[in-house]
């Protein structure tokens, strides 16, 4: 299976903001934030169609999200997951003794995971915390 290495950053999008205020338990929030924006050239390298589920893995964790084409590109080599619990499954929690985790600039690997489910925000964190869902 092909795997590609990218540099991950996170941040706000307007869809993230709107769906967050609409309720983080709703589908719209998963649709807005349970995604990874990739440059078309990187999608080609990975051999993945738009809107396919992929597994994102870093030194710190792993998460299933939907691969979509970059909306604010081009940015080859760079991947973007909107801020939220999906991004936070893989970002670097190190604060280097100043309080702030390293939310931007995390090395990740991406591989196709067509049959894996994308959980909604509540189920995602409950599972990750070992709580009943």
């Amino acid at each position, binding site marked *: 299976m092909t795997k590609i290495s990218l540099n991950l950053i996170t941040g706000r999008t*307007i869809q993230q*903001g709107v769906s*967050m205020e*609409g309720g983080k338990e709703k589908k719209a929030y998963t649709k807005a934030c349970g995604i990874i924006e990739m440059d078309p050239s990187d999608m080609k390298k990975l051999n993945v169609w738009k809107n396919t589920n992929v597994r994102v893995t870093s030194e710190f964790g792993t998460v299933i999200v939907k691969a979509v084409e970059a909306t604010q590109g081009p940015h080859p080599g760079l991947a973007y997951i909107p801020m939220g619990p999906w991004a936070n499954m893989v970002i670097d929690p190190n604060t280097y003794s100043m*309080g*702030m985790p390293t939310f*931007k600039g995390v090395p990740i690997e991406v591989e196709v995971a067509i049959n894996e489910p994308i959980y909604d925000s509540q189920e995602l964190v409950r599972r990750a915390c070992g709580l009943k869902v």
Partner: protein
Amino acid sequence: MANIVSDVICPFCGTLCDDLEVELSDDGKKILEVYHACAIGAEKFLHSQAEDRITRPRMMQEDGTTKEVSYEEAAKYTAKILCEAKKPLMYGWSSTSCEAQSVGHSVAEAVGGIVDNTATVCHGSSLIAVQDVGIPSCTLGEAMNRADRVVFWGCNPAHAHPRHMSRYSVYPRGFFTGKGSKSRKVVVIDPRKTDTASLADVHLQLEQGRDYELLSALRVAFRGEKLPDVVAGIPKDQIYEAADLLKSGRFVIIYFGMGVTQSLGKNHNIDIAIGVTRDLNDYTKAAIMPMRGHYNVTGSGEVLGWQYGFPFCVDLSRGIARYNPGETSSNDLLMRDEVDAVFVLGSDPGAHFPISSVKKISELPSVAIDPHLTPTTAVCKLHVPVAFVGVEVGGCCYRMDNVPIESRKVVDPPEGMLTDQEFLEMVLAEVRKCKGV
């Protein structure tokens, strides 16, 4: 005649727009329409009316289901976990009023807790840098009336502060900027061609995480010294051009966001951005301002500042106020298992902290006070829903430029629901009882 409430404040982002109009039903109970707000602000008002809104506190049961409890029981439970803990973390505070924050701080003092706000994952780096080197800043009104060179560094207001450009930074006609956007040159520095970058006159698409290098290069360019051919992925000619563009302005304003505060370098990135601003003042007038996220995270810093002298990460567990980000900051405390209870109000660490920290919260006695269902309420032992500040109750809030603005109540909260301030007062009374004060 339509029942319209005017001059409503939007309680979402740090832009704190104060020109909203909200149309109510004739009996004044339902919000029908929100005018002038951006999509996020409008959704916030409309969602408060959702049919499926939770209106009573709920305790999580062993089997993962929840059980409704009264506000009195909820206040007792909250007071109990705070009093029993040696070092409880009281986190959030950015989506509530200054009045509620102040009551929360009294609780924290009584139980010897740690008070930290969302700056810890947002502009904490900026606050540290400001303490190190100071900050030449201004208000948004000054920027609107004077700034003819506008820099957005590592921030994307088109998405995160949707009306910032139209109300203050790019489009409005000000006293010395009579031609609106035509009187301004906009420079965006971002590793992506963001929607803000596509509106800019100049976009420097730097390599991610190389902000410090590029900021240093600008300082070199201002002085007319030699640069290597490429810095941070940007050819030197572009850097010299950008430096000249900024120097030639009458008033430069630099807005910066998470792109610099959350990338490696963190507070040092801000140090040098402030250095750039100081340098520019040798040639023209320049100011710099953080793009604060939550509508009242600035207020939380202000209230903590005037009460304890520090804007976040305040440790009250020893009976005096201590401050040491890296030690007394939420994520470090959680990761090192240094807190034994977690109280969250007006924020969602479940969604916005690294998952390793969220796991720690789920293992501790915990309470989340939030109008919404969130990943935090999904892992905390108790969820206390409260009225929306700025929609169902007023209160003081601080805009990103430290200007206080009184938010307004538009409708009543659902029958029997408390505001966060009322709930905190109940908790305070319980805490005082159990501490015998």
